[in-house]
């Protein structure tokens, strides 16, 4: 029999079919099928191979807890996703589905040799391979383990799908749309609250999807659920999100949801995102996450065909699929009887119900027996047989050695129900152990949150509905009656899982952890569940131990002779189920991954052929190669031209802060080491900013435009933190000062023109300002117009040449740049980039904060002691600079280095020693902070931090490199135009 679809059963429409392939073979499904239900309908149980032992595995569940049936689902080569749970993924027409972790085929897998070698692969084997023999790790163990273990293969092509992101606020978020969630949502919605109701399945109802014997408000549960859904959907204050998982519960009721928008559609509209991330802030969260059925832990409990009883019931009652034709049941809980009864009524043979309890409820047993089902109470399944599908179960009366082998092609099991407290636990709520019912339940809440229904341990339907209605805050009254309660069952290894035997009784299917492994961990000294978890990897697979945690805990507690709460429960972490990276990053990929900042002149720089470098988020012109030039040649030409004629440079990235107000000078006096009250309007000064500890924090030229107005420049990278630092002092330490700070970095385009012909280039474009040396000397600033555009013109230099920095409003930057460049070109000037800027400033010994300084350098260390006012009674850093260590002799100081071989360019970061022949570790004097080829000097130059550097002038120091040792002479930092005449020319 290859069609297990039962006529008249389930809720899918027989006429609406979809075709898909599984490992190359074509199958037919019904619309609404999951991959699992579709394969089961075709008699296929074998869906995967286990992680470690490569044991054949079938689908175990019908929900997100699935550990076995992880498949590769694709639309085409690029739109392919590994590790998809067959029990969750809906089939769509044209789906290409493949099994994973097997070679060459699912039916015949070489890797299953691991199963025979399993004594070698016991718990902790992985850690032991680290230990012995050491050499074997990299060459032998790691490659073998990497090939043999693992799940799916990540796609190599770029994901062509797109993903979306939405934020939402609501009064109430309800997680789970089962009986409790629907009731709570309706109750809350009727009070007028803004409600978001979320369920991970395509259809609401939760357990009502399989539990067809429950009646609510006089209707079959599923019909009632559809009625409530219709009512909710019609309300303007309610948003229902199906196919949506609440995967994370974060601080202050912030929740992460993933909505699967198109994964179930055969031909999704390309304008739709594949998935949508919802970030929801809820005033109140209602958890109605239900419970997850546990499996039974017994020998060979993992063969294909063995599954949870509730899963088989869902496959029958919702999908209309029988999971076998002769089915056994092994249970410690009433709910499995319902599955057996439903299947029996649908015409499927039930081989036997094996109940490990000596005295289950009489009514239940009679109900089954009245249908002709054999019920064995006080019995256990002690083994199973069958290679790629279960063929028989071996049962024995508890305590007896008499076995009986019963042929079956499926085996349903139920160990009872575990409340789903994952989200509650993620919210940092504290659980308590309900000893009577062997389960953890929500106890102390960390957020404004309430748990209702099965996840709160409220099992009786009437009480559940009342609890949910009350939580919702409305006066809703719902009544219901259910056939079975959810309480009870067992945790830990069942009879026959064997205390000291070699049987494989799986606790964690996905990571192949057996009861024996957990016992081994305890024997090897792991006494905390946190250690046992890591040693065995129990609960560490992508299913996060939804099935295995309680069993593992019970086995460990039994071995340790402790109560379960004493052994502890590991913390559940987000995400509840795996979330695609694409969903989390949404549009933040490609160009939007880390958006670039471009100056107003960027397009002009591109046209001029600039190569760019990243400086923070800025794209800065690095150099401007001409045809045939490499970087070295281009930089040499730019350096030469700038000093011989002139160079034009985009300095727009400079941080700019407008400091305005009657106390502006007083404020800058406090924030910089220099004195500002002595600076006249129309003049500029180079300023150094220290933190309270006395170390250099930032530097830059500050121009005074008026008594109450300063134009402050900062380093390119330092602008945001300098403003933050200034605001901090202004708001909290000096709040009485009347000063206003405004970031103007992006408001000004800054064009630096440097070189002997700088004045000649810009003069015709500047209106209303005498640019002569007498009227506008070095370190002047003025407001004027350039080409009719209001401008701030600075006479400053970072090259040692005559220099101007033309500041014009950003929108006019390109036009002014073009005009300046046109004039510059005619006069033989060049464009230059950051590389040339670095070389030219180093030739003059101008430092770059953050390159030549590193947060341990004082102004004096940097050779800028003159910039620290001796007269001021206070500034930020005044006390820090007086600390003994900052005043001692022998501190590292910035000096120049000239290599003995002038063609040798030192490496930045190179360590400096006095004696290269001393034994290692050598005494290091400092390091090289800047090093360049200087075309203008025809030799290499370097700046270095050297202990007691200024007292070492003329000394030879050594820079040991990997292959040689380089000798260099300590000099002052000014290499070019030592007299400094050019700047005033």
């Amino acid at each position, binding site marked *: 029999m290859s069609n297990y679809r039962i006529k008249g059963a389930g809720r899918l429409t027989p006429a609406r079919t979809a075709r898909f392939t599984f490992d190359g073979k074509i199958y037919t499904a019904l619309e609404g099928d999951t991959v699992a239900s579709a394969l089961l309908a075709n008699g296929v149980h074998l869906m995967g191979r286990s992680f470690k032992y490569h044991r054949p595995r079938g689908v175990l569940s019908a929900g997100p807890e699935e550990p076995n049936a992880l498949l590769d689902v694709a639309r085409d080569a690029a739109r392919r996703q590994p590790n998809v749970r067959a029990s969750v993924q809906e089939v769509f027409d044209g789906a290409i589905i493949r099994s994973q972790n097997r070679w060459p085929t699912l039916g015949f897998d070489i890797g299953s040799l691991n199963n025979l070698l399993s004594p070698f692969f016991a718990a902790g084997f992985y850690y032991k391979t680290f230990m012995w023999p050491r050499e074997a790790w990299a060459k032998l163990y790691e490659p073998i383990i990497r090939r043999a273990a693992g799940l799916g293969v990540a796609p190599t092509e770029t994901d062509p799908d797109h993903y979306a992101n939405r934020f939402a606020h609501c009064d109430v978020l309800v997680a789970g749309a089962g009986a409790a969630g629907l009731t709570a949502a309706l109750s809350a919605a009727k009070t007028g609250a803004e409600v978001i109701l979320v369920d991970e399945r395509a259809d609401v109802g939760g357990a009502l999807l399989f539990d067809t014997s429950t009646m609510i408000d006089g209707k079959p549960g599923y019909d009632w659920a559809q009625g409530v859904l219709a009512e909710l959907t019609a309300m303007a204050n309610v948003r229902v999100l199906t196919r949506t998982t609440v995967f994370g519960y974060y601080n202050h009721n912030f929740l992460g949801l993933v909505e699967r928008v198109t994964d179930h559609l055969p031909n999704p509209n390309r304008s739709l995102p594949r998935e949508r991330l919802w970030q929801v802030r809820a005033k109140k969260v209602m958890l109605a996450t239900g419970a997850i059925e546990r499996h039974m832990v017994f020998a060979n409990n993992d063969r294909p065909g063995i599954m949870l009883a509730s899963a088989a019931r869902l496959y029958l009652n919702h999908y209309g699929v029988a999971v076998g034709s002769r089915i056994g049941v092994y249970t410690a809980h009433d709910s499995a009887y319902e599955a057996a009864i439903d299947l029996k009524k649908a015409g499927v043979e039930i081989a036997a119900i094996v109940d490990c309890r000596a005295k289950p409820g009489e009514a239940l047993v009679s109900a089954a027996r009245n249908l002709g089902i054999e019920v064995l109470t006080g019995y256990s399944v002690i083994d199973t047989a069958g290679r790629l599908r279960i063929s028989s179960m071996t049962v024995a009366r508890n305590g007896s050695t008499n076995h009986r082998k019963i042929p079956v092609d499926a085996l349903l099991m139920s160990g009872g129900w575990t409340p789903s407290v994952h989200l509650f636990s993620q919210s940092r709520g504290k659980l308590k152990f309900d000893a009577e019912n062997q389960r953890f339940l929500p106890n102390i809440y960390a957020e404004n949150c309430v748990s209702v229904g099965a996840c709160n341990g409220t099992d009786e339907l009437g009480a559940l509905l009342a609890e949910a209605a009350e*939580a919702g805050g409305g006066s809703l009254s719902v009544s219901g009656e259910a056939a079975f309660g959810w309480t009870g069952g067992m945790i830990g290894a069942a009879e026959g899982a064997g205390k000291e035997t070699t049987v494989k009784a799986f606790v964690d299917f996905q990571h192949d952890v057996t009861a024996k492994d957990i016992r081994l961990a305890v024997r090897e000294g792991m006494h905390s569940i946190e250690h046992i978890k890591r040693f065995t990897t129990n609960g560490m697979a992508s299913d996060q131990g939804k099935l295995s945690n309680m069993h593992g805990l019970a086995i460990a507690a039994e071995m340790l002779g402790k109560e379960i709460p004493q052994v502890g429960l590991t913390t559940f972490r987000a995400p509840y189920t795996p979330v695609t990276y694409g969903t989390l990053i949404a549009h933040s990929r490609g160009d939007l991954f880390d958006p670039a900042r471009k100056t107003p002149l960027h397009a002009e720089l591109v046209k001029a052929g600039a190569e760019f470098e990243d400086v923070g988020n800025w794209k800065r012109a690095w150099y401007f190669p001409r045809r045939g030039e490499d970087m070295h040649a281009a930089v040499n030409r730019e350096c030469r031209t700038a000093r011989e004629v002139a160079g034009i440079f985009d300095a727009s990235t400079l941080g700019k802060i407008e400091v305005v107000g009657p106390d502006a000078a007083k404020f800058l006096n406090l924030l910089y080491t220099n004195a500002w009250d002595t600076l006249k309007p129309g003049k500029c000064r180079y300023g150094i900013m220290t933190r309270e*500890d006395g170390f250099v924090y930032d530097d830059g030229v500050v121009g005074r435009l008026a008594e109450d107005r300063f134009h402050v420049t900062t380093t390119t990278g330092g602008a945001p933190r300098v403003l*933050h630092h200034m605001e901090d002092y202004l708001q909290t330490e000096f709040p009485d000062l009347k000063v206003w700070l405004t970031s103007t970095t992006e408001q000004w385009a800054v064009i630096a023109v440097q070189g002997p012909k700088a004045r000649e280039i810009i003069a015709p474009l500047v209106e209303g300002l005498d640019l002569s040396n007498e009227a506008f000397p070095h370190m002047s600033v003025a407001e004027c117009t350039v080409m009719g555009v209001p401008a701030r013109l600075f006479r400053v230099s970072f090259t040692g040449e005559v220099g101007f920095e033309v500041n014009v409003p950003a929108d006019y930057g390109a036009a002014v740049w073009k005009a300046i460049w046109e004039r510059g070109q005619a006069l033989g000037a060049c464009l230059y980039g950051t590389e040339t800027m670095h070389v030219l400033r180093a030739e003059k010994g101008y430092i770059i904060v953050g390159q030549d300084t590193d947060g341990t350098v004082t102004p004096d260390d940097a050779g800028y002691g003159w910039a620290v006012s001796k007269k001021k009674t*206070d500034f930020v850093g005044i*006390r820090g600079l007086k600390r003994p260590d900052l005043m001692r002799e022998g501190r590292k100081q910035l000096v120049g280095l000239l290599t003995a071989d002038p063609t040798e360019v030192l490496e930045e970061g190179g360590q400096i020693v006095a004696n290269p022949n001393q034994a290692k570790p050598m005494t290091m004097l400092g390091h090289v902070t800047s090093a360049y080829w200087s075309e203008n000097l025809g030799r290499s130059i370097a700046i270095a931090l050297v202990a007691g550097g200024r007292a070492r002038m003329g000394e030879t120091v050594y820079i040991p490199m990997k292959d040689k040792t380089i000798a260099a002479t300590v000099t002052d930092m000014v290499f070019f135009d030592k007299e400094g005449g050019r700047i005033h020319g």
Partner: protein
Amino acid sequence: MLLIHCPYCGDDRSELEFRWAGEAHIARPEVISEISDEDFAEYFFLRDNTKGIAWERWRHIHGCGRFFNAIRDTVSDKFLLTYEAGLPRQPVPGTEPVSAGGAEGGAA
């Protein structure tokens, strides 16, 4: 993600808009140039790093830009109070532990 009440904007806003700015109520000494090395170390380097109730500074940097003070429980991440910079250290508001069932209390 935390939800933080800006005392200047008078609104609860997402943590994304804020930046933490260290321990609160550490005043810069009036005449800082005259203090001892020990006092300077105490002022600039040493912090309590409290586990539990902490008085700290935050800045609504992507909002109004103002620095303000907050009382936060560093264990639960609950903000118990936020108040304007310059106000003296405020007392911890009376807090009722949230009971099982969680119907009341929690984050406002």
